[in-house]
């Protein structure tokens, strides 16, 4: 993971030098999705008579398949911030899971230049442990060595800025505090590709602003950010391009301003 980052950095420098001469240089590919389909297998519990169950062989569950992504093709380049918009259930979270590799597409291909780091509101933190212990655990889980962890820890605490709560179990945290800690941990790792699934939805205005500054800093360092968000204003302001997902298919992909306006108009019409 470390060497990938170094590679990406080196390439970014090369790309940056080239960009100095000619603005319109094509940046290296950070992520490529080719006709990606994702299915979820869902079990529906059946509640019917014993006789019917015996006839079925006692099994009390029935599996159904949900087609969450229906052929998404997309290329994201280094240093790009891509916004993903769409109504609830459009497939935004599934898309980000497929990008991170925590979900294997049923068909199609996802390729990345570096292992993406994904954060979401529901980031897996241990509720019984203090914020500080969770930071240590989170950073070690990202592959840092204990020596680096103690160094990074303070900067994460400073960024999360949740005061004395840092020494209290996470179950005493508000949703916003949890999100702050999650973002602070993931951002500390400075991943080459950062995926954000509504990670800032519950943060307050000041924290969102701080996160957006951090994201701008990441993209200026040729890192790639993909953010799924219902906050269309942020997508417009901070993203270069936007992807409008609906029913698992791409409705529009292009400059953030245009796509977001199109999406916004359509959702107003629908309501």
């Amino acid at each position, binding site marked *: 993971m470390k060497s990938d980052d170094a590679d990406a950095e080196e390439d970014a420098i090369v790309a940056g030098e080239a960009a100095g001469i000619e603005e319109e240089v*094509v940046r290296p590919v950070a992520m490529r999705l080719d006709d990606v389909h994702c299915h979820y297998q869902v079990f529906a519990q059946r509640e019917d008579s014993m006789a019917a169950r015996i006839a079925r062989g006692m099994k009390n569950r029935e599996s159904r398949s949900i087609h969450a992504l229906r052929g998404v093709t997309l290329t994201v380049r280094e240093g790009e911030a891509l916004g993903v918009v769409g109504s609830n259930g459009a497939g935004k*979270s599934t898309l980000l899971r497929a990008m991170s590799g925590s979900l*294997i597409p049923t068909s199609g291909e996802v390729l990345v230049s570096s292992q993406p780091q994904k954060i979401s509101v529901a980031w897996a933190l*241990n509720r019984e442990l203090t914020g500080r212990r969770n930071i240590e655990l989170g950073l070690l889980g990202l592959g840092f060595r204990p020596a680096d962890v103690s160094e990074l820890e303070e900067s994460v605490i400073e960024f999360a800025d949740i005061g004395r709560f840092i020494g209290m179990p996470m179950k005493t945290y508000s949703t916003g505090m949890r999100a702050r800690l999650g973002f602070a941990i993931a951002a500390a790792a400075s991943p080459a590709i950062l995926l954000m699934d509504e990670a800032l939805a519950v943060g307050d205005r000041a924290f969102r602003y701080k996160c957006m500054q951090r994201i701008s800093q990441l993209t200026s360092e040729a890192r790639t950010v993909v953010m799924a968000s219902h906050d269309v204003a942020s997508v417009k302001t901070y993203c270069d391009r936007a992807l409008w997902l609906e029913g698992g298919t791409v409705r529009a992909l292009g400059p953030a301003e245009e796509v977001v306006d199109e999406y916004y108009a359509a959702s107003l019409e629908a309501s």
Partner: protein
Amino acid sequence: MSSSKRSEHLFAPGSAGSTTSYLSKVFGLRYYIRAAARARITARNYGLAYGDLWLVLEPLFSIVVYFVVFSIVLKADRGVDNFLVFLAVGRLVFTNHQGAVLGASTSLANDPAILRDTTMTRAVIPLGVVAGAFYQWRQDLFVILVIALVTAEWPRLSWLAVIPLSLGLMMLNAGLGLTLAPIVDRYQDLRRALPVGFQLIFYMSGVMFPIEFFIRDFEHSNWAFAALMLNPVYGYVKCFQWAIMGYDIGHPIVALFASIAWTLLTLAVGLVVFTRNERGFSSFKLSHEV
């Protein structure tokens, strides 16, 4: 031009790679495994007035209960000298083994959030549980040795054998955990069935009484001997009993070889399964979050 050069670097996210590279990824996360193990213990004892003291109190109390029931009430010692130590060793080795293996094998199925939100190498999840059980085991061992000393079981050279035996037990737990976790994840009903299976193995491990006394002509009974060898933990129960109190009925060394064979087999199978299936775990559980 730079983009075509770059495309050669592209890879599928979260791909496991070869078995050796997978193993080195797990090794790279060894500090995480250690921290996760400690976190489990902290989280479990959170809010208790006596906190981590329960790491010692719990095994101590359970041995007292066993002793009262089996030695004083049922008089089931069957002529074993120092039946209290015999019980303590068997009971604590088995309980720790059972806790580690059950915890590790259900760790993937029970924690869809970590699979959904992280791209962490999956094998470290069950391994964290096994490491947590090892922390508990160190306290268990302390309790066993204290009980031994109190009941006039004086230190002997073979006590040193508990160090390699403890490491061996942890490796066995890791192997079984890695092998069972993908199976439990695939066949969720095993979450209920496995504890019942452990109950059976418990009675086949010679914990509450020397099981060898129940098998007539143990020395000549091939099927009985084979049945005991099929129990992966039997060898460790026997060897700990031998190391601490010199109890050596039932070929502890032969049983140990059987346990070591189980350890190597399950570690190899577990590693291969995790390498092959790295991103495939709990895929249907993810659907709860759609």
